[in-house]
C-alpha cells in the first residue's frame, strides 16, 4: 500500500491519499493520471490492469485501487 501511495503522491503531492475517497468524482485524478498509474502499477507490481477495470469505483480512493490490484494479483 505504501508503494502505491508513493506512486499517487508522485502525481499529486498535495493530496491526502490515505483519506480521500473522491479522487475521480472531484476530478483530482484525470485520464492522463490514470494511464500513468496503470503503467507504474504494471512496472512495480507486475499487474496488468485491463481497460474494463478503468472505472471511477476502482480509482476513487487509494484503498479501492489497492483492492483492485490485490484482486488482479489473485486472478
Amino acid at each position, binding site marked *: 500500500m505504501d508503494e502505491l501511495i508513493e506512486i499517487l503522491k508522485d502525481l499529486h503531492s498535495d493530496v491526502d491519499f490515505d483519506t480521500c475517497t473522491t479522487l475521480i468524482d472531484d*476530478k483530482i485524478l*484525470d*485520464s*492522463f493520471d*490514470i*494511464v*500513468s498509474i*496503470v*503503467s507504474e502499477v*504494471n*512496472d512495480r507490481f507486475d499487474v*496488468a*490492469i*485491463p*481497460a*474494463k477495470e*478503468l472505472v471511477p469505483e476502482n480509482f476513487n480512493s487509494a484503498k479501492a485501487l489497492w483492492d483492485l490490484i490485490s484482486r488482479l494479483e489473485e486472478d
Partner: protein
Amino acid sequence: MLFTSLPFIVFVAALILVYYAFTPYKERWALLLMASLAFYFFADPRYLIFIGVTALTAYVFAIITEDYNAKRKAYLKANKESFDTDSKKKYKNTTARVTKLLMLLALLINLGILAVTKYTNFVIDTMNSWRTEPLSFVNIIVPMGISFYTFQTVSYSIDICRGTIKAQRNFLKFLLFVSFFPQLVQGPISRYEDLSQTLYEPKKFEFQNVSYGFMRILWGYFKKLVVADRLVIALKTLTESPDEYKGAYVFVVMMLYAAQLYCDFTGGIDITIGIAQMLGITVKENFNLPYFSKNIKEYWNRWHITMGTWFTDYIFYPLSVSPTMLKLSKWSRQHLGNAVGKRVTVYISCFAVWLATGIWHGAAWHFVVWGLMNFVVIMASQELEPVYAKFHGKFHLKEKKGYAIFEIARTFLLMSSLKLFDCYRDVGLTFKMFGSMFYTFNIGKLFNGSLLELGLTSADYEVAAIAIVFIFLVSLYKALIGEDIRVFLYQKYPLFVLVCVVLLVSTLVFGAYGAGFDASQFIYNQF
C-alpha cells in the same frame, strides 16, 4: 424532417398525445420504435436498411458472445475438479480470445459500413491530389446520424465483450436503442447501460417532468432560431469571401461562430433531451457550461461530453493499457529515462484519440488538422502545467478573482481560434486568415457600417445580442447557484408559465425564418 420544421413539431406533439393518452404503459416502447422508424423513413427510406443492418449485426454478435461465455463458464463450473490453476487460466484465456474475436467481427462490419459510406469519396479525393488520371467519385448515400448510431452499437459490442452489460434479447427493443429518433439527428452518443434504464420502462406521466421537458424544448428552439440561424447569415458572407474579410473580420468570425455553434449544437441537444424528458426517458447531458472552462482539458470535459467519454473509454484507455503500450512504456523508462517513459503511452494514445476525433467529425482534411491541433494544445498545456503552477504560486494568482476570468477568456479565445478550421474549411486558408488578424490592421472598418453589409440589419444584431446576454445570464445562474433555473421557476409556477410564453413568443417573433432566412439544418446533423 428537420427539428425546426412544422411537420416535426406536429409529429412530436401527436406522439406525446398518443403515448400518454392511448398507449398502455407496457407498449410505449413499441410506439417509440414505430415513431423512430417513421422518422427515419420520412428522411429517406433507404436509411432504414443501413441502420437495420448495423443494429442486427451488434444484436446477433452480442447474443452469440453472451451464450458462448455462459456455456464456457458452466462447463468450467461443472468440471472444476479436472482443472488445475494453469489449465483453468488457459481455458479462460481461450474464452477471452474467442469473445474478443467475435467483438472485432461485429466492429469490423459496423465500422466498415461507416467507413465506406462516409469516407470513400474522401479517400478518392485525397488520392486524386497525386494521381494524373483522377478517379471518379462514387454516388453513395450517407445515412443521417450514422456516426452517432454506429458509435452506440460499437460501445454496446465492446461492453458485451467486457461483460459489463447484459445483451438485449429482444431485437425490436435493441433496434429502439439504436434508432431512438430524438438523438438520431445529432446525438448525444448514449450508452446502452444508461439509456436502457428508462427507454423500455419510462417514467410514468409526471406533470413536473413534462413541464421541464417542454421548457427545455422551447429553450432549444430559442437558441437555435433566434441566435444560431440568425448569425449564420453573417458568417456565410464573411467566410465565403475571405479576401474581402481579413484582419479584424476574422476576429468577428471567431466570436460569431463561437455563439452560433454553441446555440446550434446545445439548442439541438436541448430539444433532444426535452423531448425525451417529456416521454419520461433520461438522456445523458452533453454540455456543462463549456465556455466557463478555465483550461482546454476542462473545456473538453464540458463540451460534447458523450463523445469525449466515448473516445476516452473505447480508444484512449484500451490503447494506453494494451500490453504493447505497457511494454513500450517499460522499455522507454529503461532506455530513455523516467520522464519519457511516463509520457510515451499518454502521447501516443492522445494522438490516436484526436486523430480519430477529427476524422469522426467529417471526411475532410481540415477536420483532421483541427483534431491534431487540439492534441498539440492539450499536450502543450499538460507540459506547461508545472510552469503555470510555479507562476501561480509566486504571484498568488489563483486567489485573485480576476485571474479566473482571465483563464476563462483565454480558454474561450483559444478554442474559438481552433474552430476557425470549421469556418473556412481549408487548412491553408485557415492559417492565412488567422495570421491576417496580426498583420491586417483594419479594425476601423468594423465601425464604419460594414457589419451591416453582411446580410444582417442593426435590429438583427440587437436581437442576437440581447438573446446572447439572456443565455449567458441563465448559464451564469447555473454556474453560481449550481442548479438548473427551471427548479427555481417551477417553485413559482406562474413565473414558469410566463417564461415559457416569453420563450415561445420571442422565438416566433424573433426567430430567423423571415425573408432571407432559412431555418437551417443542425451543424452536427452531418456527422
